[in-house]
């Protein structure tokens, strides 16, 4: 596993990885495999028919982690990767994915990742995905992640996605289907600046009785960037769903937030809230009275909002 300064920075930003991770991991670098480790309970294998990996987690695996970061350090790489997770029953695991692009060239770098999770009965999964881009080239840093999750009876997923700066264009698609008593909690944090464009299309289907879904989306759009959110919650059984989208708009940015709830059962309880606004003047003034400059106050408000 060869690592240089750029690799190290990208891996730390997207996967909090300092040195070799503990547990199972697969590092994908510039469309190749730069390191892989399976464990007794978590097996990682390459796909035979298409780019990507299969991750198989045995029944009853508890307290283990699996890191699968992707880094792109060369301009002009465009890839579509399929990663499939097969998580057994009664597991409690943490999966850390993420993609970092360092583009110093004039050609676009693009990573489209399709992640499909099959989560077995009564298993709990914490899934963290961070996106980060840097490099001073004119080439675009583009990511289009797709995440599809199937939760069996009593299973749960807590999915945290973060994209703070650096990615010029992103189109995210997320779909989670919850079985009986299953629970999906999705927290999405996004900051766009410059001329960046971000779209998030999400569908949570509460299929089984007593399933629960919760979407918390917080975003900041600066400069002339634009964002579109389209979170949809569908209740097909007695269930509870809540969608909350909050955005701070700055500069000449544009934000469109279109939460939708659909009930196909009289016992479905679905709620949505959406708010877009600028940083309130009284918030800045309050923090200035505590000795912060206007810029420090603004940073503090944004940091807290996206924390």
């Amino acid at each position, binding site marked *: 596993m060869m690592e240089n300064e750029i690799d190290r920075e990208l891996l730390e930003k997207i996967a909090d990885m300092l040195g070799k991770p503990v547990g199972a991991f697969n590092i994908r670098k510039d469309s190749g495999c730069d390191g892989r480790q399976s464990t007794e309970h978590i097996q990682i294998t390459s796909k035979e028919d298409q780019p990507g990996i299969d991750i198989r987690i045995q029944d009853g695996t508890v307290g283990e982690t699996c890191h699968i970061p992707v880094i792109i350090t060369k301009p002009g790489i465009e890839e579509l990767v399929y990663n499939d997770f097969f998580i057994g029953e009664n597991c409690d695991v943490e999966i850390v994915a993420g993609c970092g692009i360092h583009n110093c060239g004039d050609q676009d770098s693009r990573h489209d990742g399709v992640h499909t999770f099959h989560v077995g009965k009564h298993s709990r999964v914490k899934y963290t995905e961070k996106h980060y881009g840097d490099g001073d080239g004119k080439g675009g840093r583009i990511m289009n992640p797709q995440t599809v999750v199937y939760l069996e009876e009593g299973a749960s997923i807590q999915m945290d996605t973060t994209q703070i700066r650096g990615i010029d264009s992103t189109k995210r698609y997320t779909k989670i289907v919850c079985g009986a008593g299953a629970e999906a909690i999705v927290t999405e944090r996004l900051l766009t600046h410059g001329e960046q464009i971000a779209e998030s299309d999400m569908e949570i289907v509460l299929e089984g009785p007593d399933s629960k879904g919760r979407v918390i989306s*917080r975003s900041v759009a600066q400069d002339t960037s634009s964002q579109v959110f389209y979170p949809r919650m569908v209740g097909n059984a007695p269930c509870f769903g809540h969608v909350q989208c*909050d955005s701070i708009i700055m500069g000449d940015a544009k934000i469109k937030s279109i939460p939708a709830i659909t009930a196909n059962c009289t016992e479905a309880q679905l709620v949505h809230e959406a708010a877009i606004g600028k940083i*309130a003047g*009284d*918030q800045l*003034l*309050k*923090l*200035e*009275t*505590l*000795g*912060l*400059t*206007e810029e420090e106050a603004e940073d*503090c*408000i944004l*940091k*807290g*909002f*996206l*924390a």
Partner: protein
Amino acid sequence: MLELKHISYSVREGDGELGILKDISLTIDDHRLVVFTGPNGGGKTTLAKIIMGLVQPTEGRIFWNGQDITDLGITQRARLGISYGFQQPPRFKGLTVRDLLTLASGDEKLSKDKCCQYLTRVGLCANDYLDREVDVSLSGGEVKRIEIASILARSSDLMIFDEPEAGIDLWSFARLTETFEQIHRTGSATMIIISHQERIISLADEVIVVGDGSIRHRGAAAEILPQILQDTLGACPVLTKEVQAQ
């Protein structure tokens, strides 16, 4: 020492100007507890905001410990030791009570014990509040008490409180007045409190009645309280008749 010299503030209204504050001069010595009181819309909050730099006066100069601070911004005044508790504090999505106290104290490693001390002094339990966000999930009274705790954490030489009692229940109010009394007793700060509460007014070394943009009366609490009472009764003919009949 705080000195206000010939402070005036006016706003444009149609073709003319509307005077909010009219040639106010006053001096407040160190470690004094001064209460600004008077009718609503009389100019108390504007005067307090002018001291913090939240409002710029149209005329006049402000001196803090001998330094002319009139042209300094809010941040600079805060760093010189002036703090301000808002009447209606803002809420912050994502910032916790601990974050706010840490920012206020300027100590990045502010301990839980210290936070607990500040919160206890406004009648809140740290265990219940430290990790809560200062957002709409808190009641008005809770946000108000956290605001006052942030001023205590700031521990500046001049503390300005704009109607600290507003929205606070009776039990917490009693705790709050004890806190003001203690700060005053130990001489750790100069305090300006905007208040209508007799209990707070009675703690003051000096009471300044601001009305119609001017200082109407100033003096010791014992001297001013009957005057306020008279003004209040004078404003209501029914009450005056009832008092006279007794």
